């Protein structure tokens, strides 16, 4: 690198430090991936994905966990996405930023977002499993996950709605559009990338969750036969294999690879889908 003759040492230092920080993050990330792949790759094959575990998970595959995780994720989003979108609409479109109820709601969401997941698990256990008598089940797990990802969904969707310039709302009103049409046909389509982003973050959060599921969805390894059956998620499987099953490390690493790729695929699919909506009915 050629330095200008009148360079400022502080500038050089800042540039160098920023570059080093970036490199450090990339190295951590690279090491993590390399470690997971080198340890899990040998154990991973088609059979691993399509068969049931044997010998406490040391052998066999992870098919039931993939199914359980899919069900948990699907129902968690099914419960939380509508509530998330409508709460965000309330916050962004029906109240001013300083409104008392809105401030209270935001405060509650921030607190909820900061609650440790083990506490969420205890709450899910006490409320869904015991009080509502749902029992250890994928349903109880999905409901607990839904509550956990609500703050992420609401805050991100609210932000993307608030980022739409006010003139679009005035324009819609000047054209005599009802609020329903303005929100559903103009503002939500404009916020669709923000909504996709909120879903991506929530999926990541939900798929990584372990503690909250131990007490709600349970950790039996068999294939779940209904929403009311208990089931083990991929993350719980990784936790169990690495903590409780001597000799389960290889399977844990292989499961981690599957989990990481699932998150990558779901994220890519969400972004593609939000672009697809654009293309099909040109917004």
């Amino acid at each position, binding site marked *: 690198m050629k330095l200008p003759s009148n360079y400022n040492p502080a500038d050089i230092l800042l540039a160098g430090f920023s570059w080093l920080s970036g490199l450090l993050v990339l190295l951590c990330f690279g090491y993590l991936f390399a470690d997971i792949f080198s340890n899990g790759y040998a154990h991973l094959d088609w059979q691993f994905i399509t068969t049931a575990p044997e010998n406490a998970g040391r052998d066999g595959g992870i098919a039931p966990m993939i199914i359980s995780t899919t069900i948990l994720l699907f129902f968690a989003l099914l419960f939380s996405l509508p509530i998330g979108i409508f709460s965000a609409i309330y916050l962004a479109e029906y109240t001013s930023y300083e409104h008392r109820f809105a401030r209270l709601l935001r405060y509650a969401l921030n607190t909820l977002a900061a609650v440790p997941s083990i506490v969420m698990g205890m709450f899910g256990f006490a409320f869904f499993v015991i009080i509502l008598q749902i029992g250890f089940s994928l349903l109880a797990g999905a409901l607990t996950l839904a509550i956990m990802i609500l703050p992420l969904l609401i805050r991100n969707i609210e932000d993307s709605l608030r980022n739409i310039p006010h003139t*679009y*709302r005035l*324009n819609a009103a*000047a054209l*005599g559009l*009802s609020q329903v*049409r303005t929100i559903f046909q103009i503002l939500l389509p404009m916020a669709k990338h923000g909504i996709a982003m909120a879903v991506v973050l929530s999926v990541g959060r939900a798929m990584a969750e372990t503690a909250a599921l131990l007490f709600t969805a349970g950790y039996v390894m068999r294939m779940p036969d209904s929403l009311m059956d208990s089931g083990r998620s991929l993350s719980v499987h990784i936790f169990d294999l690495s903590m409780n099953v001597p000799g389960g490390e290889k399977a844990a690493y292989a499961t981690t690879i599957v989990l990481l790729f699932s998150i990558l695929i779901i994220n890519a699919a969400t972004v593609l889908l939000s672009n697809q909506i654009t293309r099909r009915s040109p*917004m």
Partner: protein
Amino acid sequence: MNNLPTISHLQIVPDEYRKAPNAQDVATLIEIKNLSLNIDQQAIFSNISIPIYSKHINVLIGPSGCGKSSLLNAIIRLTDFTKDAHLQGEILVANKNILNPNCNLIELRKKVAMIFQKPTPFPMSIYKNFEIPLKEHGVKNKIDIAAKMQSALKSVGLWKEVKDRLNKNALSLSGGQQQRLCIARALTLAPAALLLDEPCSALDPISSQIIEELLLELKQKYTILVVTHNLSQAKRIADYVAFMWYVNQCGRLVEHNEAAIIFNKPSNPLTSAYVQGVTG
């Protein structure tokens, strides 16, 4: 500076509603009578009375911050979107006071269309920009929507330019085209009046000229009220001019008359200073 008329010279002439001397027989579509706007106790403009003549171009001139745009917003009650905004007085649109709490705002905004300073097509296809408002107002049939869109786009001279790209995003159009699209979109609702808030200030001179020519054509059928900073534009298109100024940050009407009189023989020294470009 010493020769300039100052605030102390300012006689606010038309305190009550009156038409221009030579326009007694010209019909008015909108009558603004003793209108005042306060936002959060702060007076934005006060005691404004202006007749808006049917099928003419009415122009509102004055310096920034004298409440011209707020006045325009008040006519279709967009001031409702501003917290603590309070309107007093009367705005008659086709003889009905639209400040009446029972006023049907959707009908009002269908009758009086508004074009904003910055062209704001919705960021979706050109077709959708027409479909959404038309569907809201009861036109559900695709053939009807297409026909109304086509005739509106033709009347703003945009049809030839966009007819092969109706499914393209409206934001892919140039600024001038976007503004004409917004005018066309407003026209599909068959309004009686068009309010335009500095419609050319974000456009290049050629696009501005196209819009000006368009307005001169549209005044055959529509009542037009334009807010502008641009005095030469006002001279080119105006039939009637209202001149606003501010006193203690509150907008007041100084003078209202035929364009020729305002630009050549205004009765108020402040008007004459402003239109000659001495102050403002």
